């Protein structure tokens, strides 16, 4: 059982200075953290890295809007979404480390860096398992919005099913994520409708954004061997099972926005390998250079 609150260290014990109290909910309180019977730890770790890296990299791309968004309200909205995703990434990377400690980069003796941070900040590009969809440049507001719509629609459909996972930790993480993602999808969908039915310029940019984002959509629907194995075990969700629902939902949003589903050619992988196998575009290298450089310069640092 897990009785430690993930927030203990952040509050330093004294909650008197907090105007609204500190009764935060720990999504993993009381959850059984033992690996489910018969599940391969390495496969579970790989699966957690896939879902965790999707969230981590998308979170970073969204956080680039901080102080750059069209207005203050949207600035904070995107930062909120980024923080939700970062929270999901933290829990998923920690689960990956618990399921298979060998995936965690080895740091100097005595380093206080927790395993989930070591995975985020000290792992090389080819060990990242995110889909390439989330790593591309943030582009303009239309690209960011269309990508958030695709990513959150897929992730919400997936997490709704993952909430019944045989792994109690994945199930608890998914239950927390569903509430967050419902808001992300709603936010993105409203903006796509607004942009699509707005001015000539907003419509032109949104059509360009669809053409940028759509070629990478197929990667989300493709079932990786790890997903197939764990789905058969009742631990993971086979993305093939959510593809039809995601199609319908995206079609609804585009129809409301008066936009057409673009005819595009898929962005190919490398010999059939894609982001889920660690094959990425150069955009991820730039994300990691920015995200990891400070942590890597201070492997024994305390944050």
């Amino acid at each position, binding site marked *: 059982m897990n009785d430690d609150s993930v927030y203990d260290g952040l509050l330093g014990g004294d909650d008197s200075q907090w105007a*609204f*109290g500190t*009764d*935060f909910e720990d999504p993993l309180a009381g959850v059984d953290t033992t690996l489910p019977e018969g599940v391969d730890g390495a496969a579970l770790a790989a699966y957690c890295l896939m879902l965790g890296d999707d969230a981590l990299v998308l979170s970073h791309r969204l956080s680039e809007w901080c102080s750059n968004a069209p*207005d*203050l*309200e949207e600035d*904070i*909205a995107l930062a*909120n979404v980024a923080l939700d995703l970062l929270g999901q990434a933290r829990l998923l990377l920690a689960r990956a480390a618990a399921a298979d400690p060998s995936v965690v980069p080895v740091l100097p003796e005595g380093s206080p860096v927790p395993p989930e941070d070591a995975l985020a900040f000290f792992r090389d590009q080819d060990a990242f398992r995110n889909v390439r969809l989330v790593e591309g440049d943030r582009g303009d507001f239309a690209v960011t919005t269309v990508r958030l719509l695709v990513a959150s629609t897929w992730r919400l459909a997936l997490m709704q099913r993952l909430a019944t996972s045989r792994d109690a930790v994945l199930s608890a993480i998914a239950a927390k994520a569903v509430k967050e993602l419902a808001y992300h999808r709603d*936010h993105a969908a*409203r903006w796509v409708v*607004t942009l699509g039915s707005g*001015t000539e*310029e*907003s419509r032109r940019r949104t059509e360009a954004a669809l053409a940028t984002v759509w070629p990478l959509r197929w990667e989300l629907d493709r079932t990786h061997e790890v997903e197939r194995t764990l789905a058969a075990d009742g631990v993971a969700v086979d993305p093939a099972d959510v593809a039809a629902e995601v199609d319908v939902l995206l079609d609804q949003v585009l129809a409301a926005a008066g936009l057409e589903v673009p005819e595009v050619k898929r962005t190919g992988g490398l010999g059939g390998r894609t982001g889920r196998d660690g094959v990425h575009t150069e955009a991820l290298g730039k994300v990691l250079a920015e995200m990891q450089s400070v942590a890597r310069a201070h492997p024994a640092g305390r944050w």
Partner: protein
Amino acid sequence: MSAAAGGVRGEWPLWEVFVRGKRGLNHVHVGSLHAADAEMAVRNARDVYTRRNEGVSIWVVKASDVTASSPDEKDPLFAPAGDKVYRHPTFYDVPADVPHM
């Protein structure tokens, strides 16, 4: 960027935001923000003003719909209440465990 130069948008209207906190009893004014319509104002308010567990309910009102008293009327409106000590129930002992007084 001005609306004329960019043709993107004019200034969105200002909305006043009221939030009812978990431990509060009524909606309290917390600030204002810009939004294109009421729906967007509620969502912006959620993002701007309830990030730290502050709220369980949000009201938004277009700032232009708020009618306010004028500072010039301060004396006739409020000064007469200043010396009516008998309107304050300060002569009662309030038990320590009565909240929200």
